[in-house]
């Protein structure tokens, strides 16, 4: 028996779609921002990036060894999906909002040749970096697919683990995105996510302000 995402719509306090938010404009703005992170990671953003950020977030040096610098430099996460436990050999992993592929490549090494990783991102420049890094590193148990979190290009109940890093806060419809994560997870599957928490409430006007979504 499966647990359907729609069954969770009654959860008290669950995030709902934001009224009058221009989702197309929001996605375009996010793509524009993260295309720059992919192509000009040294540019300087409202968040840290690259190897200094990896240290701040507790990434172990051994995880980064052998991973092409292009993927390390474009890290723009806000947490560490692996801090909650290493992935096991043979597991299947989905990396939602994989960016330039650093977490997907780390995951691919953790799960080994019997495991598999699918990284999903909506920004073509990020996917291009991720694919080139996988080729350069000779990692062949990872595949990068274009898509959005609210419609993951992954079959039902495929994954043992869903990881994500600094991306959930960018979902226009968080319940739909979390529902997709639930859909692709096997029963008993795990979520290991780094993201953002806001300690003060955000008003409806602010939720529609795309500049605030970007930073």
């Amino acid at each position: 028996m499966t647990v359907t995402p729609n069954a969770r719509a009654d959860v008290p306090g669950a995030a709902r779609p934001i009224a009058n938010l221009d989702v197309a404009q929001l996605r375009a703005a996010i793509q524009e921002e993260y295309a720059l992170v992919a192509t000009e990671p040294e540019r300087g953003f409202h968040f840290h990036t690259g190897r200094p950020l990896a240290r701040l977030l507790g990434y172990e040096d051994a995880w980064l060894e052998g991973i092409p610098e292009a993927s390390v430099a474009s890290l723009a996460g806000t947490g560490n999906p692996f801090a909650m436990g290493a992935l096991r050999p043979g597991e299947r992993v989905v990396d939602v909002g994989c960016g330039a592929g650093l977490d997907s490549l780390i995951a691919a090494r953790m799960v080994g040749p019997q495991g598999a990783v699918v990284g999903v991102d909506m920004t073509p420049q990020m996917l291009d970096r991720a694919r080139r890094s996988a080729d350069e590193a000779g990692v062949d148990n990872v595949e990068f697919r274009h898509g959005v979190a609210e419609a993951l290009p992954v079959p039902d109940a495929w994954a043992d683990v869903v990881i994500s890093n600094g991306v959930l806060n960018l979902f226009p419809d968080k319940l739909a995105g979390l529902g997709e994560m639930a859909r692709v997870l096997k029963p008993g599957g795990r979520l290991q996510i780094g993201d953002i928490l806001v300690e003060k409430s955000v008003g409806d006007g602010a939720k529609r302000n795309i500049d605030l979504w970007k930073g």
Partner: protein
Amino acid sequence: MDFEITWRADVFSGAPQASNAAKFGTVGINFRARKPSHEGEWHRALASLRCEVSDPASQKGD
């Protein structure tokens, strides 16, 4: 279910650009959760769900 925030930290201070969203008290977190193994486990977890929020009026960010 089994949702748990395992870590939180200021991950934005010192970034090259100032954040417009900083006034909302944004911090980086790690969290984990698990998909129920079956419907019964999910319904039991839902029935026992509790969420406590301190005075929202004192936390308004805008």
